[in-house]
């Protein structure tokens, strides 16, 4: 039986999103904590069961590859929401759209004039020695100067209660469908609680995404034909691809459904070929066009890059955007904001050591036990070393990796990720959380109210990725 006693809620030294020191609720969490205590432990477990049933019935799944087979797993969800004050969130949202504007200026600059290198804000070799620069994109000017139209940044809150940007995901960030589904589940599970709060709605995201994509269309005389390009049902995010297509009323296509003729893109329909204007692609650059990138790709569309270069099709995010999705480039974002926008960064970066630089590398190699070492170019939490938790052999292995390929590694101080009360088995415990808001940029820009809160659902774990045992929470932006 769960015992709900906030006075004895464990203190971990991390910032807790809902419970302050001595078990006093954070300003906006009063009603929530009181409500939960009033429900009692057994009713709370009943609600959790109801949520599981709703997830099963709504078919909310993600796919994991395991033991040589693809398995559809139910989406792991913790029913206790996370609350963020609206006044705080407004600042974060401004910071996110500022960041994305600067990143888009940077990408445009890298593929065109390259002022940032000439003005010595950033060394050119950092870009050209990494594998993310695409010659095929040089000289392009996508509509509205926007290359990255959909960005899913990862934010964390440290011990001091301050939000930091952990990384900018500019390639094919996923998770937004789960953010929306989490709210639907909460509405089913705690209808009476939602009524007592003023929570910013999030349901307009698909409409905002549609508007963003529509604003990219090369044809202004006709309503744009928008498609979502998926690698297919075995992709871990297939549920999300189908969900977004359904919500936007767009076609969900695979590479084989598209064909390029005379540098225009068409989809094969029962009426014949129908011209496509905007592709929201959920496959990586190197699979987009077997003529231009990987010849063995069966996922892409031969000739797509040619059509894009001619301006006959918009692709979101634009090919080549990955050049800015790199933990080394990340370290320069504050400088980019000052350089391109002439503004001060509203959201801080984490201090980041670039192993590329000899002085910083020496520092990293000397302090491996205190730092988190990350490969510059991986996502999903793979290939990371958490210094204090690593044994001697692992540290030595990473020292070798860094020395062999310094450009590919960065190091950051170990964070004390904030926590939020979470049901683990039959206990209510503080579990570490992060936050992935989604930022859009086309003709206009938009930031989701909140985002997807991911939670490490193993005791003491810091890993929030769903592929590695993480779960999620509904996130409320609440007036106050």
């Amino acid at each position: 039986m769960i015992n709900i006693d906030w006075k004895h809620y464990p203190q971990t030294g991390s910032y807790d999103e809902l419970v302050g020191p001595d078990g006093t609720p954070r300003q906006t969490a009063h009603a929530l904590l009181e409500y939960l205590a009033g429900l009692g432990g057994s009713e709370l477990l009943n609600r959790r069961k109801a949520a599981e049933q709703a997830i099963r019935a709504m078919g909310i799944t993600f796919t994991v590859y395991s033991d040589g087979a693809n398995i559809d797993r139910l989406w792991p969800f913790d029913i206790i929401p996370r609350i963020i004050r609206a006044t705080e969130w407004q600042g974060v949202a401004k910071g996110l759209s500022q960041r994305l504007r600067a990143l888009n200026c940077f990408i445009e600059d890298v593929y065109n004039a390259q002022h940032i290198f000439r003005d010595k804000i950033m060394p050119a070799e950092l870009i050209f020695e990494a594998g993310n620069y695409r010659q095929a994109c040089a000289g392009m000017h996508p509509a509205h100067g926007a290359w990255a139209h959909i960005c899913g940044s990862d934010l964390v809150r440290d011990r001091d209660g301050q939000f930091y940007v952990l990384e900018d995901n500019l390639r094919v960030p996923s998770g937004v469908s789960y953010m929306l589904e989490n709210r639907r589940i909460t509405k089913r599970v705690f209808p009476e609680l939602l009524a007592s709060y003023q929570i910013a709605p999030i349901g307009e995201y698909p409409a905002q995404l549609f508007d963003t994509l529509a604003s990219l269309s090369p044809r202004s005389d006709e309503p744009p034909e928008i498609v979502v390009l998926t690698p297919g049902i075995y992709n871990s995010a297939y549920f999300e691809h189908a969900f977004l297509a359904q919500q936007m009323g767009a076609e969900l296509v695979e590479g084989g459904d598209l064909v390029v003729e005379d540098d225009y893109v068409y989809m094969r329909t029962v009426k014949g070929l129908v011209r496509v204007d905007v592709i929201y692609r959920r496959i990586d650059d190197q699979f987009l066009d077997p003529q231009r990138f990987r010849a063995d790709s069966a996922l892409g569309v031969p000739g797509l890059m040619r059509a894009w270069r001619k301006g006959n099709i918009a692709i979101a995010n634009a090919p080549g955007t990955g050049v800015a999705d790199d933990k080394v480039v990340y370290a320069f974002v504050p400088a980019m904001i000052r350089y391109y926008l002439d503004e001060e960064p509203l959201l801080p970066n984490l201090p980041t050591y670039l192993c590329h630089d000899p002085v910083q590398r020496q520092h990293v190699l000397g302090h491996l036990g205190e730092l988190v070492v990350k490969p510059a170019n991986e996502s999903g939490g793979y290939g990371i070393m958490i210094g204090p938790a690593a044994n001697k052999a692992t540290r030595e292995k990473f020292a070798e990796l860094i020395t062999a390929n310094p450009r590919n590694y960065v190091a950051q101080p170990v964070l004390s990720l904030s926590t939020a009360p979470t049901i683990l088995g039959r206990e209510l415990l503080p579990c570490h959380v992060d936050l992935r808001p989604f930022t859009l940029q086309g003709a206009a820009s938009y930031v989701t109210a909140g985002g997807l809160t991911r939670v490490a659902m193993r005791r003491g774990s810091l890993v929030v990725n769903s592929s590695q045992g993480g779960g999620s929470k509904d996130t409320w932006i609440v007036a106050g």
Partner: protein
Amino acid sequence: MLSRVAERLYWLGRYVERTENTARLVGVNAQLLLDLPGPVEVLWSSLLEILGCHADFARHSGTASERNVVKYILAHETSPASLVSALRMARENARTVREVLPSEAWELVNQLYLSVREGAEHALSRKHRQDFLDRVVLQCQQLSGMLVNTMSHREPYHFLSLGWSIERADMTSRILDVGCLYASGKHPEVLAAHENILWMNVLLSLSAYQMYRQQVRERVNGADVVAFLLQDSAFPHAIACCLDAIEHAFGQLPHHRWPLLVNREVVRYVARAAPDLLLNAGLHEYLDGLQRELARIHSQIETTWFTSEAMSVAAETG
């Protein structure tokens, strides 16, 4: 709509219909067994002929005993004719077109597949078999009922309905073939005494008995049953009625000129048949011919809407 999606919906329709009809076929064969005295094992091997999987069965399962045949048709993992395979294919097709189906439909297909896979072994015993088969038929009907009533009757729906109409016509012709097998004189000793029971079971297998009785005021006899199942324009499992549904669906789809022409030829082929004459000689050959005609409709659907070669930019109509 995308050609790939159209094709998958079409096959989803076919596999769901095939599941329902295969369950009916096994059920009616078992009922017939209980009614007919004498040498009845032969009925089980004839079931394999109807489903066109005699050779495949022989490779995998040996003698055509009741247990072997039922096991093969219900649960065989690789047989193209088994319930489990049909449902696996239905499920795969539904999974890839999830975004155009009502969300409950995918879940129903999924449940149906899981329950058949788990329950098939249990259903090998005569005691549990009929319950199991009835449940499968009912769940299939629940699914098609949901689709009819919750999907807009536009292109995606028409491709589903083409799938189930063609499959249904095909299966009705196969079930008629069972009757034919006995009526054609191959086993006159069985038939002579029990013609009435045989044709009654043919009707029952298609839930057609009551509708037939309301329509035909004669004692149940071969010629009337064949006429009813071939040419009745109002009973949904009658072939003429299936062809009518196909014609309707074609009419709602783009580029339908050739498919409509082929379909009308098949309509004429069915209208021309004289059941009483056929019953004396040539019904089996006639039904074989009908199955080939249905296959022609299928290929016409394929070339018109599914294969990319048939399309060109010039065909763009928006």
